[in-house]
């Protein structure tokens, strides 16, 4: 008999017992749906975290090395051009930017229109209208009378006020001081060769409200596929040995990737634990399938006898009942998969990350339900195929 015929005949006998088939399927549906929900949400959480902590919007991964001088009262720039050139020659490094007090650039926390931001601030001591896109630059008069004005780059302007025009003459708060945005500059404004900056403010205004600011940070961006913690560590060790200021301070690297790995492990662990709990439900559902198949076999003893009498081999009878069990669990599995995705999507609407849909979860649902069908269907099917023809027909 052809497989197609076996499938058709199995499908029909499932249909002829609709209510029983559906009740048996519910167990599988619940089991698969809960596994898929958990996996989709767990995966989504992991991916969201990876994205937030490690890579920028382009998918590139970056790390930071900071220099702390031994004597904290002295202001030293930890990175000179020679250091930067050496780091830049590393083939795995895509971009090097430095934030150094010595060049009047440092990173600061701030808010714009209620949104927090971390930006590189260029402290201007003279008039500045470099790479200006809209508005006006900082004038000497602004600096001499300590007017709290700022130039911000396009992406910060858009982040705060959506359009450049809205941003002009609005406020931005940096390290506790509020500035009026008078101009918008290009995103890739740089000073010298390496020193990117996002915001320009008059130095004197900034310093009157900020006695101490952190400086001397090196931001490294890597080409994708790099083991970033190892490479960054290598660069850090190199700096500690031969960096321009290795004798007057230390270079440090806070490994966010390692922390990330830890968090990822925890999420994975929780996911697997819940999946293990959910698979208990699958096990119970499997026993339900087995029970139903045993009932079906004993109910249809006559049919088995007739099929054998017209020439069905034991193998064909075995396959008929096995395929019936697999079809039952597989359709339950597919319904459960869709239900699980639906639930995960529904839940993630209230969460800060999206549920992730991957082919592997589909294969998991497909495989698991098939295996449940095979494992729990084989014994009833064996019972059916081992029945003695003479005993049945008597």
């Amino acid at each position, binding site marked *: *008999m052809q497989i197609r015929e076996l499938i058709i005949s199995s499908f029909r006998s499932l249909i002829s017992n609709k209510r029983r088939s559906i009740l048996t399927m519910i167990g599988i549906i619940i089991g698969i749906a809960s596994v898929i929900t958990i996996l989709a949400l767990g995966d989504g959480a992991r991916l969201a975290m990876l994205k937030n902590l490690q890579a920028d919007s382009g998918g590139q991964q970056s790390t930071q090395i900071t220099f702390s001088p031994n004597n904290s009262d002295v202001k030293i720039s930890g990175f000179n051009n020679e250091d930067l050139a050496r780091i830049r020659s590393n083939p795995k490094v895509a971009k090097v930017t430095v934030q150094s007090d010595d060049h009047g650039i440092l990173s600061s926390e701030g808010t714009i229109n209620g949104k927090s931001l971390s930006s590189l601030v260029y402290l201007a001591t003279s008039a500045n209208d470099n790479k200006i896109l809209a508005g006006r630059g900082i004038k000497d008069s602004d600096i001499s009378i300590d007017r709290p004005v700022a130039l911000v780059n396009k992406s910060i302007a858009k982040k705060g006020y959506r359009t450049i025009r809205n941003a002009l003459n609005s406020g931005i708060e940096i390290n506790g001081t509020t500035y009026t945005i008078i101009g918008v500059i290009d995103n890739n404004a740089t000073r010298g060769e390496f020193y990117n900056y996002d915001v320009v403010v008059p130095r004197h205004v900034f310093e009157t409200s900020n006695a101490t600011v952190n400086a001397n940070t090196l931001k490294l961006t890597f080409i994708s596929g790099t083991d970033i913690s190892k490479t960054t560590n290598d660069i850090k060790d190199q700096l500690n040995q031969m960096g321009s200021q290795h004798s007057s301070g230390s270079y440090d690297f806070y490994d966010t990737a390692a922390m990330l790995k830890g968090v990822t492990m925890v999420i994975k662990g929780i996911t697997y634990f819940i999946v293990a709990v959910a698979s208990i439900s699958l096990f119970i559902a499997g026993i339900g399938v087995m029970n139903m198949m045993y009932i079906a076999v004993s109910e249809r003893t*006559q049919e088995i006898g*007739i099929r*054998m009498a*017209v*020439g*069905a*081999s034991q193998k064909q009878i075995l396959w008929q009942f096995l395929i019936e069990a697999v079809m039952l669990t597989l359709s339950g599995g597919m319904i459960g998969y869709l239900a699980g995705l639906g639930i995960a999507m529904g839940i993630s609407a209230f969460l800060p990350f999206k549920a992730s849909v991957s082919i592997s979860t589909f294969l998991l649902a497909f495989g698991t339900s098939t295996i449940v069908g095979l494992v729990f269907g084989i014994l009833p099917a064996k019972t059916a195929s081992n029945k003695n023809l003479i005993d049945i*027909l008597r």
Partner: protein
Amino acid sequence: MINLVSISKSYRQGNENYKALHEISLTIQAGEFVAIMGPSGSGKSTLINIIGFLDNNFDGQYNFNDTVVNNLNRRDHARLRNQSVGFVFQNFKLIRNQSVGENVGLPLLYAGLKRRDIIARVNDVLEQVGLPGSYDKLPKNLSGGQQQRVAIARAIVTKPNFLVADEPTGALDSATSREIMALFKELNQHGTTVIMVTHDENVARQTNRLIKILDGRLQSDMEVEHADS
């Protein structure tokens, strides 16, 4: 065609062995129309189950054409059952939730034929047994006689070497019995070997050879004298 050499069969009943058949030897040629008669418990059903390849658990030797049946494994035995014999049961034994056509086509399905060929063949056979156009009916909507015709159609659908019928008229009234017997006779006249078990003298008298069996032993084996011949 069929050659039984000292066939014995015993059942276990509790601790005792109950011997249903005692060294039966029998030869049936192609084209014969044979009735096996005997009171209940005489072993006639046991014998016909062995002849019809339903039971392969016996002592002695069964030669079917060139095949030694008692040496076959379960798979080959099933194939022989599928292709060489058609079995007609007393209580029809149709699958209730399948249509008439599907019941008749079942042996062809197990023989591995394609669905399209099966449907064509089934319709031919249904016409042959006097039930044209009933492919899609359900067995429960048919009368007993019609159901037995469906069962006969199922038995002859694979064009087997011989038909085995176990009390084919046992569940039918006398008028219907006559119709069914007429059908068997017609099949036999077209060359099909028919072996049937009955305890009805009237039915047995319409065959060509009558074998009587008692307590598992052959009692008599004779030609049937027909009044009209």
